[in-house]
């Protein structure tokens, strides 16, 4: 009828803009972090035989009290081969940390051969032949490395091969916080 009616047609756009402002604001309030599957959770309970002595078993509770670097590896995994020498050097430089290897879905003989010829960075090597521990840890592939604090909580998880750069950038800050 007249121009005042046209003004009414702007109401929906106005409402929409208000709502958009609200949603935009809410988007930044609720920046919730999604931690990876097991982050900040206790290490799952397990009891696994070691690689060198199948009669000796290691439990999660038995490992508590130290900061653990748990490395999931296998001989069938090419990045693990690449990672190994770095891991050996890093473990030599970090005497305060307990390096635990989880030999994942692997052949024990081949794994023993691998360690014997290339050096052993680990204090303990657990064998996870059926991959059950891997599943409990939410492992998606090898290598993967977990940092576990003294109370037995997983604090950090890294997927992929580690070298000195990765160690300095990703692991050192996390570990220094735990000390």
């Amino acid at each position, binding site marked *: 009828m007249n121009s005042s009616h046209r003004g009414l047609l702007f109401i929906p756009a106005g409402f929409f803009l208000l709502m958009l402002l609200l949603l935009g604001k809410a988007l930044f309030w*609720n920046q*919730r*972090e*999604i*931690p*990876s*599957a097991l982050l*900040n*959770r*206790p290490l799952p309970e397990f009891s696994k035989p070691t690689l060198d002595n199948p009669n000796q078993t290691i439990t999660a509770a038995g490992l508590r009290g130290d900061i653990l670097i748990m490395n999931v590896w296998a001989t069938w995994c090419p990045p693990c081969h690449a990672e190994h020498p770095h891991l050996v050097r890093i473990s030599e430089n970090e005497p305060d940390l307990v390096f635990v290897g989880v030999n994942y879905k692997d052949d024990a003989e081949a794994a023993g051969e691998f360690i014997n010829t290339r050096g052993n960075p680990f204090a303990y090597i657990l064998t996870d032949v059926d991959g059950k521990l891997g599943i409990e840890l939410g492992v998606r592939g090898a290598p993967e490395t977990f940092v576990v604090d003294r*109370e037995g*909580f997983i604090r950090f998880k890294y997927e992929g091969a580690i070298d000195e750069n990765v160690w300095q950038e990703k692991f050192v800050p996390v570990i220094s916080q735990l000390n």
Partner: protein
Amino acid sequence: MRASRRSRLTIVIFILLGGVAILFLLRTAFDEGLNVFFTPTEIAEGKAGTNQNLRIGGMVKQGSLKREGEGTLIQFIATDFNADISVVYDGVLPDLFREGQGVVAEGRLQEDGTFMARQILAKHDENYMSAEVKTALEAAESKGAAIPAMQQ
């Protein structure tokens, strides 16, 4: 134009009546449906009344879950590591309910200080820390509570 004016009047009356009805409904709806969020600390400080719908968030205290009674009644302690609140719930717990993990409960505060939950909420995504639990823990932390580990 007389007919048109009369119909316009009817329309205005209808709009007014409808508006009043909607506002009345809205008022009732908010009274019944709104849950105000409180942390265990705030409840301990007496900030929440017994006559309103509440939503509380916190961690289920380790070892506090009692479910051995005769019926289906359950009792556990929700904590923000600063204050505890005892929660009573009658029914089936959600699949993701676990000790040492976050919980959100809706219900009312009883005279004796326990919280009678109408509903226990669980998230479908385990990785997720509900906003309520996070707020409760952060608030408690700022007051000096020692939070052991964010375990949710």
